[in-house]
Structures are given as structure tokens and as C-alpha cells.
């Protein structure tokens, strides 16, 4: 085990250096588009007051969570069904491949036709983009359930919901989480884009608004907020994953040490 201070140094050294470089390089900047970091940081608290956090950040995050949750439920449910039956899988495969290959942002104009420009549209856009990686990874995971394990469960009389929960979904969960991770970044992209198209609030809307009104330092603070949000969500995701997949990572660590 390394001393704590040394590890701390490795974590903060480069970020500190980069921020310092940004600060120094931009300090005397008169370029409108690259305002000094000093100005950006001074603008930050003025722009992101609790009022704006409530009116823009919260709606964005709620939409993201609603769409993401819907995609997770639908993706895992459909994926389990498709993965469990070989014939269903064969029938659905080409269509699913196509739907997955569709760049999700092109769905924004399509869904705008159906759902207008309200919250429903944004949630639908996020859900329809996030669902494919979750669905396909669940299919793969369910398909690859160890046959010995499945047989054992059967001979012990584990059936129905118990079998689904503690055998199928458990065995598929590493794959499902891989899908959820891919879906998270797609979800953030779609959240921002759907708000850039037609909205009256939200992070994407606000940032574009600043850009159009040439409030450049404010725009930069918006970019920082989006970056922080992306980072925070990925940290939260990793914590959840570590909890849920603790058994799996432990298993892998053991099998790596004793080949």
C-alpha cells in the first residue's frame, strides 16, 4: 500500500496543472470566444443560482432519469424474452440490428412529429435511444446463461419468478450493466439535443440560449455544468454497479489471481 499522500498527488497533480495552465494561458485573453478562466469562474455563481438550478438542471435530470428508467425496464424485459427463445431471437435479430444502428439523434425530429415538443417528447427520445444497448446486451447475457447452472436450478425445482430473478437475470447482470453504461452516455447526449431543438428550459436550452445571445462566459459555465453532470452520473453509476456486481468483480479478481 502506498502512502496516502503519494496517491493523492497522483490524483490531483495533472488536473491541477491543467487548470493552472488554462488559467495562465487565458488570463490575458481578449478573444471573445475564449474568455479568461477567471471571468468564467466569477460568472459561475451568478449564473447557476438555486433559481436556475431548479428551473433548468432539475427538469433536465428528471427527464433523463425518466427516459433512462423506462428504457431499462423495457430493455431488460424484452431482452429477457428475446434471449430466452431461440426462434424469437432469430426472427427479431435483423430488425434489432437495424434499429440499433440508427443514430439515436435522428429520432428527435421523428418523435417531435408524434409527441410535439413537450416533456413527453424528450422522455420518449431519451428512452428510444437508450433502450437498444440495454436490450441487445440483455439478449446476449440471457443467451449465455450457463447451461449447467440452468439445469441445476431446474432439478432443484427453482422455476418461475425465482428462476428468473436468481438464475437468469443474476447471470446476465454483468452484460446488462455493460448495456446500461453505454445507454447512460447516449441518454445524456439525447437529453441535451432534445432540449436544443425545442424547449423552454433545461441545460441544453440554456447553453444554446447563452451562445445565441453571445453571453460567452455564461455559455462556458454551462459547458462546465454539463461536464460536471456527466462526471457525477458516471460516478454514481460506478457506485451502483460496484454494489450490484460486487460478487462478479470478486469472482473475477479471484480467478485472475489463480489461473
Amino acid at each position, binding site marked *: 500500500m502506498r502512502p496516502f499522500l503519494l496517491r493523492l498527488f497522483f490524483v490531483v497533480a*495533472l488536473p491541477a496543472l491543467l487548470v493552472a495552465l488554462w488559467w495562465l494561458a487565458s488570463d490575458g485573453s481578449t478573444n471573445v470566444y475564449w474568455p479568461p478562466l477567471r471571468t468564467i469562474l466569477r460568472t459561475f455563481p451568478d449564473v447557476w443560482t438555486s433559481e436556475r438550478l431548479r428551473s433548468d438542471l432539475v427538469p433536465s435530470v428528471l427527464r433523463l432519469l425518466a427516459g433512462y428508467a423506462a428504457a431499462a425496464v423495457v430493455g431488460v424485459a424484452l431482452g429477457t424474452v428475446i434471449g430466452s427463445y431461440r426462434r424469437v431471437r432469430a426472427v427479431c435479430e*435483423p430488425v434489432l440490428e437495424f434499429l440499433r444502428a440508427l443514430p439515436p439523434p435522428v429520432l*428527435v*425530429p421523428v418523435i417531435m412529429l408524434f409527441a410535439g415538443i413537450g416533456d413527453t417528447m424528450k422522455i420518449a427520445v431519451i428512452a428510444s435511444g437508450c433502450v437498444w444497448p440495454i436490450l441487445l446486451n440483455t439478449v446476449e447475457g440471457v443467451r449465455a446463461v450457463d447451461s449447467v447452472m440452468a439445469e441445476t436450478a431446474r432439478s432443484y425445482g427453482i422455476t418461475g419468478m425465482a428462476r428468473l430473478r436468481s438464475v437468469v437475470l443474476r447471470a446476465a447482470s454483468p452484460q446488462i450493466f455493460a448495456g446500461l453504461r453505454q445507454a447512460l452516455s447516449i441518454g445524456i447526449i439525447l437529453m441535451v439535443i432534445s432540449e*436544443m431543438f425545442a424547449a423552454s428550459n433545461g441545460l441544453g436550452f440554456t*447553453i*444554446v440560449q447563452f451562445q445565441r445571445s453571445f453571453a460567452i462566459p455564461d455559455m462556458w459555465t454551462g*459547458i462546465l455544468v454539463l461536464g460536471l453532470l456527466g462526471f457525477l452520473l458516471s460516478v454514481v453509476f460506478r457506485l451502483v454497479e460496484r454494489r450490484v456486481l460486487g460478487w462478479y468483480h470478486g469472482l473475477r479478481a479471484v480467478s485472475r489471481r489463480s489461473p
Partner: protein
Amino acid sequence: MRGANAALGAAGLAAFLALGEAVPRLGLVKEAYFPPTSRIADALGQEVTEHAFWTALGDTLTGWALGLAIAIGAGVVVGLLVSVVPYLREVTASTIEFLRPIPSVALIPLAVLLYGTELRSVLLLVVYASFWQVLVQVLYGVQDVDPVAEETARSYGLGPWARVRHVLWPTALPYVMTGVRLAAAVALILAVTAELVIGAPGLGARIAVAESSQAVPDMYALVVVTGLLGLLINVGARTVERRALAWHQSVRGEVAV
């Protein structure tokens, strides 16, 4: 077995298309929102006769290919450098973890201000998004190098360059290829997004125009084209992966001894 699966797949596809034809015809969805398959196909036929369509397709592919190439090059070089130079990996870990989840679409306003609707704003987004996919896979790949092989190469007196060439690179290649496959898909998403939102010339911009001029079947036709493009890119990336890794266990499969 394969034939049966292909037949079932074709049946599924046919059913999907038939559903797309029947649902609006039966009035379950308004035709104005969701035209039947045949009308989308008509619009698609119309599109491919137009010169502007091919120009847009070319623009999209240019942004995609150029951005992907830059991202792969930079990702591989930076990845190898970071993992070969002592301590560099530990120093950069936190920065990479922080920068990677920043959504590249956050850079859209900046790209608009800096480059307007030029190709360069597409490239900015595409490169930022796909660079991380490659970089992270290279880092994973290098980490996977067998310490015994590394030590063996060292004790045979292989220099740093030869070690990279003969030990590191072959081990990391499967990971790099995964990164390239992921990056290829992400690059298309970002290229189309940039065109759609910023208005840089390409398929995305054409979709935006079709949408705002109420040319609904054309819009669907273009959406289908982007899907087919994505499909081609996926298949292509997988083929490249198989070719490049033809020697590797995962592709070669178990060989009976």
C-alpha cells in the same frame, strides 16, 4: 441451422415492414405522422436520384471517416505513450476519468462559435467523442500484457520499441479493435448530430430541412439511410476486426490438436 435462422430473420424483417405498411393504412396512426412503408420507399427512390442526396451522404462520410481516423491515431499514440512511460498512467488516470464522461454535445455551442457550420465543427465533436473510446481500450489492452512475456522480452534484450512492437501491440490489438468498433459507431452518431443540430452539410442537415418543410416521407427515408449507414459501418468494423485478429484465439477458435 444458419439457413433456418436467416429465413426466420427475413420473415421478421418482412413482418416489420408489413407492420409499417398496415398500421398507418388502418388508421391506427395518422399517415401525416407515420407514412406507410411503401411511401417511405417511394421517397427513398426519389432521394437516390437527386444529386444533393449523394453530396450530403459524401459530406457525412467525410466527417465520419476523417474524425474517426484522427481519433484512432491520437487514441493509439496517446494510449501507448501513457502506458509505456513510467508513472504517466497513474498521473493521467484521474484526468481521463474526469474528461471521458463529459458529453461531447456540450461542445456544440463552442463548435458553432468557433467554426460555424464548417466541417471543422463536425470534426471537433466526432474526434472528442471517439477519442476516449479508443484511448480507454488501449489502456485496458496494455494492462492485459502478460508480465512473464514482458519480462522475457526484457531479458532477451529487446529495446523499448521492439517490446512495443512484439509484445505490447499484439496483446493490446484485440482491445484496440473493440475500441475502433465502438468509436466507429459513436463517430457516426456525432457526425449526424452535428449536422442535425448545427446545420453542417450532410444527411443530418437534410433530415432537419425535410422536417421543417413537412416532407415527412423524405424525412423517414433519410432516417432509414442513416440506419443503413450505421449497419454498414457495424458490419464493416466487425469484418476489419476479424481480419486484423485472424491470428488471435478469439477469432481462430479452438484448434483441435
